[in-house]
């Protein structure tokens, strides 16, 4: 299933946040969104997932979600959003219960996603007993449990330290390589973008417009540290972002 953004514009009151955004999120690819702070990346993701309505334009689903998909558009939140009163197992079963999946059937799914995120030993733990990286893996496991057609990830690794982030990036690459998923991935971190993105959308400062779309056709599994081609792309992205950030600063000075 593909997602198409058709001339999306969005304003909060008088503040225009997004302007005329059109792009595709193709099936089986990870599309990264980068852009200066406050340019509307989180807003865009909320629009894609239907948590908010765009002022103008439409978000379209092309094709049908894969078989067995319970929740086509599924978020992984920056702050994990785990219920503190439910165990790891309970947090995942939460999203299955409403689809009538209970008992042994739910246990099979939960065991599978916990194994895929290397959490099998922590099924009974409460969120407060887990480290940040583990909490985010639980959130990823929960998202996988509903077999999403598209994962909407808003800075999923930002709350984590850099080593944990590296490890989780490896985990995401491994997950994707085993079974490719579609994702819209918002990040501040350009290294993350070039590591995970098949396509990187650079947004301008507010109001966010598409400034450039960079395609990286190198397979995810081959993208190692210190790869010169990736570093060039990252530098190119960084130059664009720096210009935007500087321009945003100067706008403030003009006021």
């Amino acid at each position: 299933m593909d997602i198409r953004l058709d001339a999306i514009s969005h304003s909060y009151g008088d503040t225009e946040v997004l302007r005329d955004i059109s792009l595709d999120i193709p099936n089986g690819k990870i599309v990264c969104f980068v852009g200066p702070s406050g340019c509307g990346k989180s807003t865009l993701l909320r629009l894609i997932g239907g948590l908010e309505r765009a002022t103008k334009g439409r978000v379209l689903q092309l094709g049908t979600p894969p078989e067995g998909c319970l929740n086509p558009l599924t978020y992984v939140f920056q702050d994990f959003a785990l219920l503190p009163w439910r165990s790891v197992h309970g947090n995942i079963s939460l999203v299955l219960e409403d689809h009538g999946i209970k008992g042994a059937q739910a246990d099979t799914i939960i065991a599978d996603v916990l194994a895929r995120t290397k959490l099998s030993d922590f099924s009974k733990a409460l969120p407060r007993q887990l480290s940040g990286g583990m909490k985010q893996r639980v959130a990823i496991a929960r998202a996988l449990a509903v077999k999403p057609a598209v994962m909407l990830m808003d800075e999923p690794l930002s709350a984590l330290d850099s080593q944990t982030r590296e490890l989780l990036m490896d985990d995401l690459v491994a997950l994707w390589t085993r079974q490719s998923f579609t994702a819209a991935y918002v990040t501040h971190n350009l290294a993350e973008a070039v590591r995970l993105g098949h396509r990187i959308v650079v947004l301008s400062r507010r109001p966010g417009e598409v400034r450039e779309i960079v395609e990286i056709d190198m397979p995810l599994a081959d993208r190692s540290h210190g790869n010169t081609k990736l570093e060039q792309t990252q530098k190119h992205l960084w130059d664009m972002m720096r210009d935007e950030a500087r321009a945003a600063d100067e706008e403030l000075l003009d006021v």
Partner: protein
Amino acid sequence: MSDATAPTQPIEVRFRGGGFAPKARRWVGLFVFVFLIGITEIGTRQGWISSLTLPKPSDVLATFGELWESGLLFKHLIPSLSRLAVGAAIGASIGIAVGIMIGLFSYVRAGMVPLVAAIFPIPKIALLPLFVIWFGIDEASKYALIAFGTFTPTVVATYGAVDNVDRSLIRMGQSFGLSWLSIVRKIVLPGAMPGILSGLRISLAIAIILLVAAEMLGAEYGIGAYILEAGSLYDLERLFAGVVILSLLGVILSTVIGFIERRLLGWRA
């Protein structure tokens, strides 16, 4: 720092963390009670507390023993307990339901919040004659008074607690396509539970106060009637025996809520 030449002694860093995390210290509460009662006992025995000021705790205990032996204790206690249970259960459950509605629906909020604010400061005891007219002199008016008095603090605590539920968790529920009812049952209610329970502590104490008030105004049996009778005869021992029963009731209810909190809110620790 000021004198570079003097060799400075290493100073151990002063510990300034800790605290702000109350732990279970079971015996301290008991000790406070024993201490206060002990002082009173000694004072009344030695005479520096006159017997007009306070009765001897041992005499109060003896009165209590008589109450027990004559079977009068349960004759007074059982009607009181059932009034408390029925009244508080009605008031708290309606209060929680209305509080949740206020927390969830804008129109209910707009309509009910001013109403609750208007009802809250009314001394409910003043309304007892009204309740007697509406519900008769029997049990029903006592239930109504207690229920009404428990209702308002429960509502206020509940909607405050619902307001404080982490919105990002609710968004999460919506993003996974949970039904409205599931979100309320599995996210809003458990999230509001800490606030609801601490509200119940206050509501139940108020229920005990109103129980006594209702019984003072018209009941043959009940702790309130017993205290009123003792008071009109200036029988301090019996008065205090009644008061001790009320205090015990308060302690028991508070312990029960503490137990429920440990069961339901273990995830907070």
